[in-house]
């Protein structure tokens, strides 16, 4: 279980209050979508849940599990190591078989010789795909998404979606923090709205979206998602 107990936290710039004595509990295997408007601290909330930041007050507890990885996060990659060396080391650190992680990554991304060059030398898009492939290849009881669950072209997105669905079918839990109510409705079963520093339960993605003050069900713009993701990896 992952639980937030009366958490207070601020944006990284220290000015905006993001969570104000917020509490929430995520049961193992549950799928929760947290709707939050742009600029209200989705990434900060993700970092708190991932255990990368410690809340100013209150506690984020990971009971019987390790803190989840943020899907597609490439921060653990070292740019001067090759893609393969990075994947092997990170798989071993996560307690997974490096061979199976490499096999799934090759299969999913279609990358071959690109894995043998330092990551600093490969395009940002390749790094992004590697990061997502690693996220889905590592066995973890929780998946944590900060807005995006996939990147790249249609084929890779479709592979990510298939893997996400398969992981959820096998009982993994999902915490999806998003401003897009369509994405929330697609993957979530439970819904929370981040509003006024609190995590407010909602009956549906639409209700959560209304509470959070996010844009109405706008058509998903994949190109925009892609450029945002690549900006993060550049």
């Amino acid at each position, binding site marked *: 279980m992952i639980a937030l107990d009366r958490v207070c936290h601020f944006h990284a710039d220290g000015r905006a209050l993001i969570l104000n004595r917020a509490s929430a509990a995520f049961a193992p295997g549950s799928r929760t979508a947290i709707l939050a408007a742009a600029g209200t601290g989705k990434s900060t909330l993700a970092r708190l849940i991932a255990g990368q930041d410690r809340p100013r007050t209150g506690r984020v507890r990971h009971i019987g599990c390790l803190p989840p990885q943020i899907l597609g996060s490439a921060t653990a*990659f070292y740019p001067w190591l090759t893609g393969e060396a990075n994947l092997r080391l990170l798989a071993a650190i996560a*307690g997974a078989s490096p061979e199976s992680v490499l096999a799934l990554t090759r299969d999913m991304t279609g990358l071959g010789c690109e894995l043998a060059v330092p990551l600093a030398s490969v395009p940002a898009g390749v790094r992004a795909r590697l990061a997502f492939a690693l996220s889905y290849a590592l066995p973890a009881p929780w998946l944590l998404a900060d807005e995006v669950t996939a990147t790249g072209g249609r084929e890779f997105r479709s592979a990510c979606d298939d893997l996400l669905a398969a992981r959820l079918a096998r009982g993994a839990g999902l915490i999806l923090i998003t401003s897009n109510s369509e994405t929330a409705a697609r993957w979530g079963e439970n819904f929370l709205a981040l509003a006024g520093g609190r995590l407010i339960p909602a009956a549906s993605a639409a209700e959560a979206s209304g509470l959070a003050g996010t844009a109405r069900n706008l058509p998903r713009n994949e190109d925009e998602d892609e450029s945002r993701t690549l900006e993060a990896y550049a």
Partner: protein
Amino acid sequence: MMLHGAFRWLAVIRLLMIRETRIRYARGRVGYAWAFLLPLAWIGGLIAFFGWLGHRPMAGVPVAWFVASGMLPYVIFRQTISGMTRGLSAGRGLIGFSGIRLADVLFALALLELLNAIVLSALALCLLAVFVGQVTLADTAGSALALVLAWGLGAGFGRFAAMAALVSDFAARILPIALRPMFWISGIFFAAADLPGSLLALLSWNPLLHVTELARRAAFGRDDHGFIDLTVPVLAMAICLAGAHALEHRAETGRPARIVP
């Protein structure tokens, strides 16, 4: 279950150390050998300089042996600090990955530096034996204690410096500069017994000078005239670790903030 957790933690620490050996000099052809070649070249250069000057700081002791016994604690101290500060900067991205904490990264870096210190000391002794002749340690346990204390001081200060650099850019710039005088005041070029009383009293606050004197006493078996006080380096280490602990909390919770509800 607890035992499994301990084994898993040790395995992660080992992997963090392996990762560090692969990334530290990943851009060069010589690779991790630089971790030993650079300090050995530094010690060798200083020995050559002393030889060129014809200066004999301690009667009856070969210059190379005198310089090496003083330089080794200093080099271990500095290497540990720079290894931890640079290592944390490269390993920050791992924090949160698979439950890795800041403290795990710092512990792995410190442990790696201890292994480096042991290998470096062994290499230095071997090279001295080859080029200078017979090298004997009057007190092997004392020499080992000096090595551990030099490393411990470096690990304590390194942890503090790494954490300070995380919370303040100013600290990241100023700390390496603040450490520079240590090269001149830590007994590399002189023995404490040769200093005038007032200067010795002033320098007795320097924890590394006590470690250097311990290393020399253990190497040559000379009397230190009661100068060595191991509480100084141990206390300095404890203060650094306490300071680092306080900074760690601040680094993880972010900078002090103004509340805008």
